[in-house]
């Protein structure tokens, strides 16, 4: 069929889809803050960012200021309305309300606004980190890279991009090096609570000029040139690729605005050269001046533009099926199933159900 008129354009697609309202409706955003971000475990920072007694690190979860403090080697997390610095030492926490917290999965500091969480971090992540546990939990790690981005897009669009590899068509490096049998043998594996893993494959770095083979310097217990991705609901991504480990963490600022914090990690015991090698490997792809990150961000910013508030509601296709392998959009389908359950809405028509729910509640 040729170009479409309005009617055909709005027709229900023949494959799985969700409504763009999931990405730009203000009420939905408010519900997400209340029912998702105020409930889940959030990896707010890394333990190495607060290694000395008295160090603190702050962030914001669901519009609330939260601070993690090192008290004699133990981490405590508090609600802290008046905090005005991202990090420092010597913060009085007298009278502050303490939140549940844990240090888990490669030294991440986890906390939740849920005052009575029914699950531990381990129960919440429920096996999604198993594939990289040996690599990230054997040696102490430390953060060597931090930067952030504020993008006019919905946080889920960023997470979508992290959850699918079909967009490798956008990245030159992936386009020319990746599409072999081994590549397509990679699978998306769904876990409870909307989490997803992508299992390993070998990257042919030689085909990209300017990059040496990264085989030599790997993470503990990780065969050279392997790649793992952990996509944690509702918007946290951990990525282990050869000798570099990274994470990104979203903080939604509005239906069409998100803060993303990027971190790169090495091993504490790294020599200066080893560290430099990791930093370089990290930067070439995921640094703010790297090849892929810039493209990924242009991608989601573009989606944010066409889906900003006031744009016409349209269908976003999630319908690729390739046996759960790398270009299958199963990761997103799995995510939105969990997301819909959290909010009690149908992602294909989230507002209709919201309205029904409001009526039912009244």
């Amino acid at each position: 069929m040729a170009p479409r008129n309005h009617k055909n354009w709005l027709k229900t697609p023949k494959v799985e889809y969700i409504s763009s309202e999931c990405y730009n409706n203000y009420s939905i955003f408010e519900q997400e803050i209340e029912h998702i971000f105020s409930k889940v475990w959030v990896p707010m920072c890394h333990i190495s960012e607060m290694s000395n007694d008295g160090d603190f690190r702050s962030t914001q979860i669901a519009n609330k200021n939260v601070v993690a403090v090192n008290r004699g080697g133990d981490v405590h997390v508090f609600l802290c309305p008046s905090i005005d610095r991202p990090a420092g030492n010597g913060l009085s926490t007298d009278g502050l309300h303490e939140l549940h917290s844990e240090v888990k999965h490669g030294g991440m500091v986890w906390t939740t606004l849920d005052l009575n969480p029914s699950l531990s971090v381990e129960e919440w992540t429920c096996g999604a980190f198993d594939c990289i546990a040996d690599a990230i939990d054997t040696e102490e790690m430390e953060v060597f890279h931090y930067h952030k981005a504020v993008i006019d897009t919905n946080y889920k669009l960023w997470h979508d991009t992290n959850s699918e590899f079909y967009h490798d068509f956008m990245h030159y490096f992936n386009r020319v090096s990746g599409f072999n049998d081994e590549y397509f043998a990679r699978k998306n594996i769904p876990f409870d609570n909307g989490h997803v893993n992508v299992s390993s494959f070998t990257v042919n770095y030689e085909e990209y000029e300017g990059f040496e083979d990264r085989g030599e310097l790997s993470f503990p217990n990780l065969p050279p040139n392997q790649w793992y991705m952990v996509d944690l609901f509702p918007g946290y991504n951990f990525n282990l690729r050869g000798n570099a480990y990274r994470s990104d963490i979203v903080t939604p600022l509005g239906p069409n605005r998100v803060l993303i914090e990027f971190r790169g990690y090495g091993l504490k015991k790294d020599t200066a050269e080893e560290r430099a090698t990791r930093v370089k490997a990290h930067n070439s792809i995921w640094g703010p001046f790297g090849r892929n990150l810039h493209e990924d961000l242009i991608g989601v910013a573009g989606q944010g533009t066409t889906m900003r508030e006031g744009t016409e509601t349209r269908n976003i296709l999630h319908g690729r099926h390739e046996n759960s392998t790398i270009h299958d959009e199963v990761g997103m389908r799995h995510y939105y199933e969990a997301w819909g359950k959290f909010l009690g809405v149908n992602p294909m028509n989230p507002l209709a159900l919201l309205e029904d729910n409001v009526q039912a509640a009244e």
Partner: protein
Amino acid sequence: MGQIVTNDGQNVSGSPKNDSLNDTLKRANEAFIKEQQNIFKNVWVPVCHESELLNPYDFRTSSIGNDNIIICRAPDGKVNALLNVCPHRGMLIERRPQGSFLEGQASGNPKRITCMFHAWQFDMRGNCVYVAREKEGYQDRFCKDDAGLRRLRCSVGFGGFVWVNMSDQPVALLEEWIGGALSPIMRQISSSPLEVVHYHKEIIQTGYKDEILNGLERNAGLAANLFFPFGHFASHNADEKTVPNGENKFPAPNATKSVKVNLFPGYIFHLSGPTLHVSTITPVSQNQVMVENRGLAPTSDSEQERLARSKHYNSIFGPFRPLKSEGPTPNGKPESNSPELSKHYNEEWVRWMEKHYNENGSLTNRVVAQGQKANPNLESEASGPKVVVVGASHAGIAFADKLRKNNFTGPIAIFDRQVGGPMERPPLSKGFLLGGGEIVESKSLLRQKKWYKTNKVRLKTQSIVHSVDTKQKTITVNNGVVVNYDKLVIASGAKPRELPDTVGVANAFTLRQPSDANAIRQAANNADSVVIIGGGYIGLEVAASLRKKGMVVSVIEAAERILARVASKPLAEHFQKLHEKHGVNIFTGIGVDKINHEDGIFAGVVLSDGNEIKADMLITGIGVFPDSKLAADAGIETQREDGGAILVDEAMQTSVKDVYAIGDVSIRRDQSLAVESVHNAQETASIAAAAITNNALPAIQTPWFWSDQYDTKLQSVGIVPVGESDIYQVARPGKKEGGISFWSYRDENLIAVEVVNDPATYMEARQCLDTKQSPDPKQISNRSYSPIDSGGARS
């Protein structure tokens, strides 16, 4: 940048904590979005100029009402508009403001529009030509045939602008939408190819509406305002004389004329001396509007000419223009125009905002989206068949009136594209032209407002009926609102013929609708002389009215005499003398070879004998043709395949059951000659009303007609078969001084009577014809002979 994540929550989150403030913002935003939906997504937007995408595969991007679009030139040279949204996961497909698709993008191929995200590719028409790993990912469930882009309505015209309408069923086609609004500058902007030579944009911290209304104050210096349907208007400085153009068709670099056309809701074409400035608005938020400014010049300019224009442009419109350069009025007129302009604009704005939400509810949009039937206005009415009328003029209104008088209780809705309450047409060429302001005298209204209420007649003005579906029994109005009917009455009337050379020339008019008369009246207030082409009734009436205003009036009639098609020769001679006595120059038996204009403003005519008549304005009155396109498109039989009047039977029913036609648009199958008159409109209306209410059809009266010129009143009854040699006239002196009548006979039989200033004789003549009596032609010239009951029964 470098902002700290953990401030107190206000800075970082972008979502203020204060709930009531939040709600206010939300509501403001909702109102803004509503405007975008109701107005901007339904109007024609000049998104760019064709010179911005000269070659095949060139593109421009833009946005309308928050949605992003691509405008591109296909290999065949055609300009297409597409939604700039990828059908896969909604990526903005093209990010650049302008460029060429000839070169491939990083993820795609040459001559393709590529979505960088997953490399789906499209051609210049919006066909999807490539889906990456299509079969592997979608098997047989989905393929590129399902992935075409959204194509938008797009027209190039009016000086080479690219116009896009986000609605598939616009209220009006582009030409209808703009109507005459651009006519004051049409000649200039279409005489030679233009190109954009200046571009800059501004983001102004105010709502778009305020920006437009504030801008109106600057119109104050432009003395004459013209109002057009759909909220458009034009202002120009009629006082300033233009510098002759020479060979250069676009305003010469030293021209001084200034015309500013405001197209609703905020696209301004400003011809100022040698430059054309076009500004377009794009609302950004409730309190922010982006204004794009373009300066245009002919492609044929020499470097010097370009420089001169550019200098002039920058001094008035450039980003570094001196403040207030457009300042107060050169002729010292008070700034009195803007309230009326604002009113005209606001009325249109309200209409758009209400149409969707107050009257019809949000129905309108849904109807379009779901293609369902809906009946927004008639549902709540009393029982009975639903009658829908197209055209609220003499025929349509008389029909509704008769229907109610026949005790019809069902709902009646009348749709008309005109603005404002329906007006009588006859005064438009007569007393109306003598009036002053823009105010419509309520005495000229066909019916007062109360009448519609009392008679439960729903009048929908500014509503164009686009199509009739005689099978579904529905009509489609404006935005695609579908209205069903049980009986449809087409009273769409007639349209004036135009001379092709006058199209787009400023100060050249035809006269049919109240808006035409309004425009003529306003132009006449600033003009000293007029040429009228056509010596028919309308032409002569206008001649009389404008002569009364003291203008120099010339009437040009191609036929050997005036009123050649409608009146007897002696009557025509009578009127010729009358006009000559009043100082009108009448030229008969001569054609018009050329319409002269300066800078697109009418300047005079050249006659076929080579003589030139200079004048400030032109009125063409060379007859009308039935406006039957709507019916013809619906498969209803008309006189000719390509048009003509709608053929009806003796009950005014068309070739399609339950569809009737009345007034100027209709002609009975047994009728040889169309009679375009108020009487005919009323008579055909009563016949149709009787037929629909199953009453006996009223007897057909002898046609009658009147005309007022100076202090002379013509009344005529019957139709004079002009051009038939066996017809002869006998003159009868009037009962009073100055009265006279002309009795037309074939043999002994009375055919028609034309009466000047003698109402009593007219009554007698009418009685004769109605009762088929023929007074003796040999005696009728004798004033003491009574035509009534003189025994001469007609055969």
